[in-house]
């Protein structure tokens, strides 16, 4: 076994253990009370999982991207909200690791992230632009003291109150066009979060994602050197869609497992005659396989393109279409599988307190199509399709 395979294996074993020992037993309470999955995140910190993707020379675990994706899947099987918190943090980490271009401030930051297991939240969406991440209203504004300030109206900031630092997209300067964006990383002690709304939602309740006005004062070195459009095309968008789909697949897989357990229990009660819902379970298996295939091919293509020098392929429109389609397909298929599982389990699945409950799974995955509205992505794809050649 090579060193890197061994590292991945050890990391995944630890995450699986945390999923079973911390995420699973708290999932219902986290959901019911819409509270932060503190036990799970604390356990991940203890295993140094928050810096799993940070290079070894900066004190991180240097696991592979596949391992991160598998970790999202494993956590998703036990608690969707915990998996989403972990996934969002990792999206920010991967974006920084891949685009810091040796910048001192960011290298130092990753060292402290690894040492202190800091958790990064994000404010990439904004009031006034809706789900269009490619435009910003708020701008980096140079002050007289050599620092830069900004104020951003953020409609949804997951675990904002529990995070150490904040990953924010902004216009490059007060005169910059809405699409001329940069990423900044603001530390908690530089940031003020003024709550503007609550988070009492249908699902993903434990992500604790109310709105805030974000005000911060940062040093110019806290602006990531790579322009946001490049960060977005090469990392943030594909990584988000891949990690999210892995956790949605995890949730759907657990819903399927619960349906299977329900059918097995029925079969045991009445040996000799297969229960009528057994056929429905078989239908559900086909639906789950479709989701699984889409998720794993999306990951494989991203890994291929990331392995090429310069990662140019990730900036092509064909690649954007591919990853957008992964998001649309997975976000629609995951709640479909959960609903199918409820169809198999019937009232036992609908109730919130049986071993076959799949209500939380269904509610959690229903956030998927609107977490970046699919219609908006379809509109982007529609124009990309006008010019892309092979899709």
């Amino acid at each position, binding site marked *: 076994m090579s060193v890197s395979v061994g590292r991945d294996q050890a990391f995944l074993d630890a995450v699986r253990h945390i999923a079973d020992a911390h995420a699973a037993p708290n999932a219902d309470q986290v959901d019911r009370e819409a509270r932060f999955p503190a036990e799970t995140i604390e356990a991940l910190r203890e295993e140094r999982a928050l810096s799993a993707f940070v290079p070894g020379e900066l004190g991180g675990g240097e696991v592979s991207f596949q391992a991160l994706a598998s970790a999202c899947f494993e956590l998703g099987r036990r608690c969707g909200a915990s998996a989403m918190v972990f996934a969002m943090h990792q999206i920010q980490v991967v974006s920084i690791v891949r685009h810091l271009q040796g910048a001192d401030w960011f290298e130092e930051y990753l060292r402290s992230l690894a040492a202190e297991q800091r958790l990064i939240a994000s404010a990439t969406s904004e009031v006034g632009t809706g789900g269009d991440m*490619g435009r910003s209203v708020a701008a980096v504004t140079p002050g007289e003291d050599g620092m830069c300030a900004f104020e951003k109206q953020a409609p949804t900031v997951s675990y904002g109150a529990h995070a150490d630092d904040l990953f924010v997209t902004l216009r490059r300067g007060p005169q*910059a*066009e809405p*699409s*001329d964006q940069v990423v900044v990383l603001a530390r908690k002690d530089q940031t003020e979060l003024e709550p503007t709304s609550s988070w009492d939602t249908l699902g993903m309740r434990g992500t604790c994602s109310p709105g805030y006005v974000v005000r911060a004062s940062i040093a110019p070195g806290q602006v990531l050197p790579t322009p946001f*459009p*490049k960060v977005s*095309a090469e990392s943030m968008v594909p990584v988000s869609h891949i990690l999210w789909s892995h956790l949605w697949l995890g949730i759907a897989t657990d819903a399927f497992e619960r349906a299977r357990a329900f059918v097995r229990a029925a079969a045991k009660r009445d040996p000799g005659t297969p229960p009528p819902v057994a056929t429905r379970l078989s239908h559900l298996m086909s639906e789950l396989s479709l989701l699984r295939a889409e998720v794993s091919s999306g990951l494989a293509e991203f890994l291929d393109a990331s392995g090429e020098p310069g990662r*140019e*392929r990730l*900036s*092509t*429109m*064909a690649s954007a279409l591919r990853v957008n389609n992964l998001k649309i397909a997975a976000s629609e298929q995951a709640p479909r599988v959960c609903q199918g599982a409820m169809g198999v389990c019937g009232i036992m699945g609908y109730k919130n307190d049986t071993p076959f409950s799949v209500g939380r799974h269904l509610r959690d995955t229903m956030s998927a199509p609107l977490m970046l509205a699919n219609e908006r992505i379809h509109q*982007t794809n529609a*124009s*990309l399709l*006008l*010019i*892309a*050649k*092979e899709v």
Partner: protein
Amino acid sequence: MTKEIRRIITEYGRLSVDITALPVDADLYQAGMTSHASIDVMLALEDHFDVEFPDGMLTRSAFESITAIEAALLKLRAEAAVR
């Protein structure tokens, strides 16, 4: 060629600044060209110069300035001449 490219950008790029004053190496996205507008520009370029940009060339950076667009078109022409 530069003149024709400028004309197409004026018509389809929906820039927020006056294109005649824009240097050939200026970043068109920073000048306000949106991703949607850039696709209209690409379509118009394909139509006008009777070329097809292959997928590998359809990146944001290939269309970020007049110079970049000109280079992409010249590359396509050179490749067509070899064939």
